[in-house]
């Protein structure tokens, strides 16, 4: 039982970080019909910005974190929207999907060539001490990751539901035409969505990189899992992405421990195919009324 709890909690902690990435993905999809295939790389890159801040610019760790956060928002939010999404979106969704794939390769190879191909140690924000939870040994870092991720999700939900800007963003996502008529600055709201996506990716990066080390290839699996979490939970719901992320994190850990480690990577994929075929709107999602 204590082993189950241990596996369950660490799965929940990883899943919460997946959820952050999946939520960003969902927001961008809602606001701009952009399916970002580089989302995994968006999580890989901020850690490298922090490392650059620490080792090249000589900043201290916490300052470097702020530096990495700011650079991520500019590069992965603002520049991504202005230079890639805006010019390519009118050519169609599939063209944009391919462009984001190319962007993924670009980011990955740049990290490899300009920083290094080896996995780089990345300082943790919290100590990795083991603590005892009902007989299960759980690392403090996992627990804090879980708490912080959930805290971010709650703050984000409050922002979207309770503030004027947040509600304008929701209106933009639901019906840009009507939102525009009602005086919402649609372009600005879409831009905010991209900035929030970049911020979420950066936070996920800072939480997860101490565990995986900073490596150029980190994005490959992470991105795929985030998509799957977003789809499984429901592509048009924040809480869907949250549920999807947690579910995949837990299921992944449980399969690896109790069923098969070899086919561990297959489980989310099978789950994805089943969900898409049986319930394309996701577990929590509502039907979009779009012919998807």
């Amino acid at each position, binding site marked *: 039982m204590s082993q189950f709890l241990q596996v369950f909690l660490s799965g929940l902690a990883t899943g919460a970080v997946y959820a952050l990435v999946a939520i960003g993905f969902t927001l961008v999809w809602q606001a701009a019909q952009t399916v970002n295939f580089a989302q995994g790389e968006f999580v890989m890159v901020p850690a490298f910005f922090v490392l650059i801040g620490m080792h090249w610019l000589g900043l201290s760790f916490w300052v470097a974190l702020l530096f990495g956060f700011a650079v991520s928002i500019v590069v992965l939010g603002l520049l991504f929207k202005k230079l890639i999404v805006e010019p390519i979106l009118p050519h169609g969704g599939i063209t944009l999907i391919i462009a984001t794939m190319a962007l993924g390769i670009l980011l990955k190879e740049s990290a490899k060539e300009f920083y290094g191909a080896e996995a780089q140690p990345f300082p943790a924000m919290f100590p990795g001490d083991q603590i005892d939870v009902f007989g299960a040994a759980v690392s403090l870092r996992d627990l804090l990751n879980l708490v912080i991720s959930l805290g971010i999700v709650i703050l984000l939900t409050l922002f979207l539901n309770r503030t004027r800007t947040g509600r304008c963003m929701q209106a933009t996502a639901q019906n840009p035409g009507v939102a525009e008529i009602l005086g919402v600055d649609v372009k600005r709201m879409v831009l905010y969505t991209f900035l929030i996506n970049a911020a979420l990716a950066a936070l996920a990066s800072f939480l997860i990189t101490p565990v995986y080390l900073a490596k150029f290839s980190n994005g490959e699996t992470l991105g795929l899992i985030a998509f799957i979490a977003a789809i499984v939970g429901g592509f048009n719901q924040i809480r869907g992405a949250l549920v999807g992320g947690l579910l995949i994190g837990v299921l992944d850990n449980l399969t690896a421990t109790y069923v098969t480690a070899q086919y561990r*990577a297959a489980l989310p*994929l099978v789950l994805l195919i089943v969900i898409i075929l049986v319930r394309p709107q996701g577990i929590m999602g509502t039907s979009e009324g779009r012919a998807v």
Partner: protein
Amino acid sequence: MRGLSVRDVWRSVAIALLLVAAILLPIGQKNYIIYVLTSWLIFTIAAMGLNLTLGYAGQISLAQASFMAIGAYVTALLTLAGWHWLAALPPALIISFVVGLILGYPALRVKGHFLAFVTLAFNTLVFLVLRNEDWLTGGTYGLSGMPRPDFGLFSTDKHLPFYYFTLGITVIAALALWGIVRSPWGRAFKALRENPVRAESLGVDTRRVTLLAFAIGSVYGGLAGALITPLVQFIEPGSFGLAHSLRILLMVVVGGAGYFFGPFIGAAVVILLPEVLRFTEGYYLIIYSALVIVMLVFVPSGLIGVWGRLKAKVWPKQQVRTDMAEGAGLQ
């Protein structure tokens, strides 16, 4: 039959010239260059299949490499068991067809990015099976030592004969595809791409057409795989991962989705450009992906579309119905 227009004559002359160039090009070249040219032809076949699925029928698939894997592994296992390559080819193609048909079923329910994810997941599942089931596939070590086909007087053991052998098969595959896209099926594919509802209401069986688009596209993937086996004589799961599906997709888009000759150009760019950029060493993928993004911003309809766009600017003419014209606006 309508008579040959001036344009058709020019086109035939251009094709004949290109074919002669393809025959003369490898003569006197080093083995490595012949090898690169052969893999260009093989990837052209794979991209032709995806072009049918994506460019003509409008169904995105990120699983073309997994059909190459199916074709390659079936051919490898059978030729290693002593079958002749020609005998191993039909089973490889039939299995690709059937699996492609099955993969087409999700496309009946979902479109666009959802379909992209399903096919992407399928590709990764095939990769995992190839890697984990080592009793059949040799696991991560793969399979090696597959013989090249021998036709009595014409043995393909050397690189140059194998190139001509591949060229012959490419020409046959291209002719077959030409037949398909000119046939009522081809028109049905385009109708499906442009407006599925209208196609359905005009009596096109969209269900069957969607499945066929996947199945035929997969057969081309399987054929390309069946040629990779004797070319490389070593196959492993890593050669058929998601990255390779993306490469094939890139070929289709770079060349021009929905254009018959798009895949030839696309495969040439994707296979040969890295060789040209080799002097930049590690930076080539960076330059390459940046070039792709720039191209998608400025010429989203692919390189083959550049000429048409220039011409339309200088010499505008009447709009043609999009299901009659070549080239796809991918939504």
